[in-house]
């Protein structure tokens, strides 16, 4: 996950500015430490394992909510043309929490659209790292990819 550097800098300046204005008694307070804010997007555009396709994984809502339903649109591209999604590609996805040893509690529905596959009824019910697996079948044959989504 990327860090919003500019926003972080503004935040730190704000914190330290206030601290300088009134420092007396600070040692009595519960100590806190600011942490970098993160870019709020779980959308991915990744190359499949054998390099046959670029796959765009776009959740709605984005970022993926914790313990609430969400949908995903999977679009497949040739690496040579990342602007034009392929039509008629089959794609499916599953997800689980490797650290926990379980998957989702719901079976998602995959619906083939012209230039993407819509996956509905997903739910990542716990915070932590979810490993998403996507399988693709298109003009270049079958390929797959895996990536992590951290739900916080």
């Amino acid at each position, binding site marked *: 996950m990327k860090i919003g550097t500019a926003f972080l800098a503004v935040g730190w300046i704000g914190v330290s500015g206030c601290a300088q204005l009134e420092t007396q008694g600070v040692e009595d*307070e519960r100590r806190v430490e*600011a942490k970098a804010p993160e870019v709020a997007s779980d959308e991915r555009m990744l190359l499949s394992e054998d390099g046959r396709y670029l796959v765009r994984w776009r959740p709605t809502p984005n970022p993926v909510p914790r313990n609430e339903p969400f949908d995903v649109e999977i679009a497949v591209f040739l690496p040579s043309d990342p602007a034009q999604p392929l039509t008629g590609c089959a794609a499916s996805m599953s997800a689980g929490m490797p650290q926990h040893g379980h998957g989702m*509690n*719901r*079976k998602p529905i995959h619906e083939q659209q012209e230039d993407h596959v819509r996956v509905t009824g997903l739910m990542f019910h716990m915070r932590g790292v979810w490993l998403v697996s996507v399988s693709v079948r298109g003009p270049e044959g079958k390929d797959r990819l895996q990536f992590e989504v951290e739900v916080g």
Partner: protein
Amino acid sequence: MMIGRRVLWAWILPVLACQVGVKGGDEVPLAKGSTVELTAEQQAIALQLSPLGPGPEDPSNPVFLDPAAARLGQSLFYDPRFSADGKVSCATCHDPQLGWTDGRALAEGLRPLRRHAMGLWNVARQRWFFWDGRADSLWAQALQPFESPDEHGTNRLRVLHQIAGDDDYRRAFEEIFGELPALADRARFPLDARPVPTDEGHPHHLAWTGMEAGDRDAVDRAFANLGRAIAAFERRLVSDRAPFDRFVEGLREGRPEKLAALSDSAVRGLALFVGKGNCVVCHDGPMFSDLEFHSNHVRQHPASPDSDTGRYDGAILVRRDPFNAEGKHAEGASSEQRNKVARLITRMELWGQFKTPSLRNVATTAPYMHQGQLATLEEVVRHYSELPPPLFVPDLPERILRPLHLADGEVQDLVSFLHSLTDTDVAPELRGPPSTPWMSQP
């Protein structure tokens, strides 16, 4: 929750700034001299745990918010006449004086049951009902104990005949739901009948299958409405003003006097809860529950030697429940309500899993776990600190569970934090039956 991350940081940072730079030592008596630390990450998680917020709507229950239905439901809840021996009501196992549970390890209706009675605080916010989630709505849940032979031991026809034969109940029901079926016709509506799919030779089942399909539908519709009324009452059992909620307000607003709502020990317990202890992984969100199911290695209660399959069977049963959101009596159910049943995965790893209980008011609802195996909160915390091995082979363990190896002080800190989730303030009139099941019209 990642969805709120941008928003979250947009106001966390100013709050943190205020905490560092604005709060004076004398204005924060609890914090004065305190060595308690909460990292920004811990604070961010704490902010996700409060406020409780408004509960979800239930589109499958049109009277969910109806005061008259709630009053009828309250009467039904406390009335022992709707049981085989006239002594068991919902309140038998869900006693308002005992945190809406019964203080026993194993609940007891007409006979001892095999599980602990769950508390009802904030119950309308649950996703699944019972320890195994075999009901998918609060109103569908409320129906099952009536016909359980070990709980109320009655049946839907008997209950409806009682409603029809009682002027007050009949009035209340018909003012809300319209006319009851023509129950006076005993040839069409026998006194005792219910489906008993596990015993097709049961007299109640024979009586049920002997009825016309349309009459069975009418009975089911009326019976479902009784559940809806009970759900409208139970929706009111809300606990959302615990010291922890005040503390989180203090975090959010930078108000030292609100931060003082938690003792130093409780704040250390909070840090453990969202940090080293990893409790928040399952006990997450404002309900302190992910509303789903897990295995936690707790031993079987000695009085219940049989293996309890938990969610494994619960997932099967909720799919079969004729009153679930996919059924014809759940008109108005949302697509989400239908999907959660239709898309439910049933698989071996559900074996021995039980619902993550909410921790709000947990200090008032001892004993703990699905069979009340642990008597105190300290025992609960020590269970996770030491964590025995999984119970039996099919009981697939949660890999995330590891012994926490907590020091004695840490155990006490976690217990202190759990006590800070206590708010038992509920309207006194909800703690007993109303004078009448009907509501006077203005």
